[in-house]
């Protein structure tokens, strides 16, 4: 059986040759919720962007396949890719402050996509928008629909972005650090809202984050990324009980324990970082020799 979404040997580098992703492999079954964990600069967002076809221009794909419902997205021309992605996938972006167009009213931003791109009728789109805002528990949807983004709080905007992502019932949603820009109390609500929406709609979800706590709440499986390389790919329960890679173990111990204020912060040790770096560099050498 082919997986619903399958990434094979995906390598991405900057134009100057610096590698961003190193032969990444990942499989998602229909309805899976997978966490994609890593520190800043590990390339976790780039995987999501590569799937959606929105990689920054400075990056190029060296090799690999992204098989989505059996089709290799990297072989599609821009037009076909837009159609495929627009109808079947959606993004919950990182920063709710810049992810809504400041010039358009909220209602229009949600309905436009349904009307212009997916060809819905206006009344259907408007009705759907009301239902969605209701579903993400936005009070007074009538007022919100007629508001501009700057009139709403960060949490509200993130709810709207979630509603908007689910609007066309996509089969795949990529949540790109959806809670990073929010404050802690709101983060919790947003995470549980995303989890709840996912289970109600049965959407496949790729949850990009650096927060292991979030992963333990919503995900079933996770991939740990370091320097653009997947170093651990396992189920959430196995990971938290018994992580196999030393870096994963160090990452778990480095997560601060809120219950014990006296405990010291334990950073990931230099030794482990260096050993992973060496491993990665060795792979790089093999990779460049192979070309």
């Amino acid at each position, binding site marked *: 059986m082919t997986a619903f979404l399958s990434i094979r040997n995906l390598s991405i580098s900057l134009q100057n040759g610096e590698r961003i992703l190193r032969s990444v492999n990942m499989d998602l079954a229909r309805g899976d919720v997978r966490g994609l964990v890593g520190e800043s600069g590990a390339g976790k967002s780039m995987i999501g*962007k590569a799937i959606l076809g929105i990689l920054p221009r400075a990056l190029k794909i060296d090799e690999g396949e992204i098989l989505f419902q059996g089709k290799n997205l990297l072989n599609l021309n821009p037009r076909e890719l*837009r159609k495929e*992605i*627009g109808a079947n996938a959606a*993004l919950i972006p990182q920063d709710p402050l*810049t992810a809504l*167009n*400041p*010039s358009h009213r909220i209602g229009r931003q949600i309905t436009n996509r349904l009307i*212009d791109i997916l060809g819905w009728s206006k009344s259907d789109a408007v009705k759907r928008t009301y239902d969605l805002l209701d579903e993400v528990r936005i009070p007074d949807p009538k007022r919100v629909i007629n508001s501009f983004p700057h009139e709403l709080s960060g949490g509200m905007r993130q709810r709207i972005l979630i509603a908007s992502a689910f609007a066309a019932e996509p089969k795949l949603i990529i949540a790109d650090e959806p809670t990073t820009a929010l404050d802690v109390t709101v983060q919790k609500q947003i995470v549980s809202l995303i989890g709840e929406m996912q289970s109600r709609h049965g959407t496949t979800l790729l949850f990009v984050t650096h927060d292991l706590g979030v992963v333990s709440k919503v995900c079933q499986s996770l991939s740990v990324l370091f320097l653009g390389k997947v170093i651990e790919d396992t189920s959430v329960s196995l990971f938290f009980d018994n992580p196999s890679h030393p870096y994963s173990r160090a990452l778990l111990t480095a997560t601060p324990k809120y219950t014990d204020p006296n405990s010291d912060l334990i950073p990931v040790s230099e030794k482990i970082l260096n050993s992973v770096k060496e491993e990665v560099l060795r792979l790089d050498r093999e990779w460049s020799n192979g070309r």
Partner: protein
Amino acid sequence: MVDSSRNINRKIGLRMWLSGGWLLFLFLATLFAPIISPHDPLAQDLFASRLPPIWMDGYESTYYLGSDSLGRDVLSRILYGARIALLVALIASTATCIIGATLGVLAGYFGGWVDLVISRLVDIWMAFPPVLFAILLIAVLGTGLTSIIIAIIVIDWTRFCRVIRAETMSQSAMDYVASAQAAGRARFGIMVKEIFPNVLPTIVVLLTLEMGIAVIVEAILSFVNLSISTDFPTWGGMISEGRTSVHQAWWVIVFPLITLFLTVLSFSQLGEGLKDRFDPVLR
């Protein structure tokens, strides 16, 4: 919250009223110049030369702002001069804006070789000294209203292009563009529907600034006699003529200067006010 926004509105209000009022007055002056002008702007009357404005000794009742050394009425000439000034301001700046902003948005959004070609063109273009460039152009094209307008477009489109390109680039980096792209919107659609509305406030401000600049450029060119023929009164021409008699009749040069100053100031203030109006965050 409500109070502070009202406060902003009131501040915008005064500035917009004053600058808008002055420009409206000028606009009406251009329409009704033949009716409201006390004299024919071209009629010379050597018995009425260098008459002072009416609050000074030796005035004559219908020469409100005095007359120049050929006995032509200063007020009438200013009113008629507004025709040329506003015509040039509107046509030249709008054309400049359309060309410069279009190229700027294209360069800023598409990047790559499009940006490379447009940006290098702008760099090369800007290396020419603008006034010399204009004079050279007019020497080639010949004097006349069309030449002035073309000269302004040719000199100033780069200003729009630079600023709009930068603004478009910063908008293109926003997450809402990535979202629209992921939602399946075509690139051209994103440029027109998502990015353009956010660049528009900047374009409007630049456009009004450009109107002020166009008025000045036209005045400079008439000052050096490269504008339309001296049969038509222009502010720059009046300033140039008044220069020779500034010790005997200061009003011939001062009133057109004040008019020019107020007009350019009004355009820039109107631009600032409009920017606040257009900006969804300040609105």
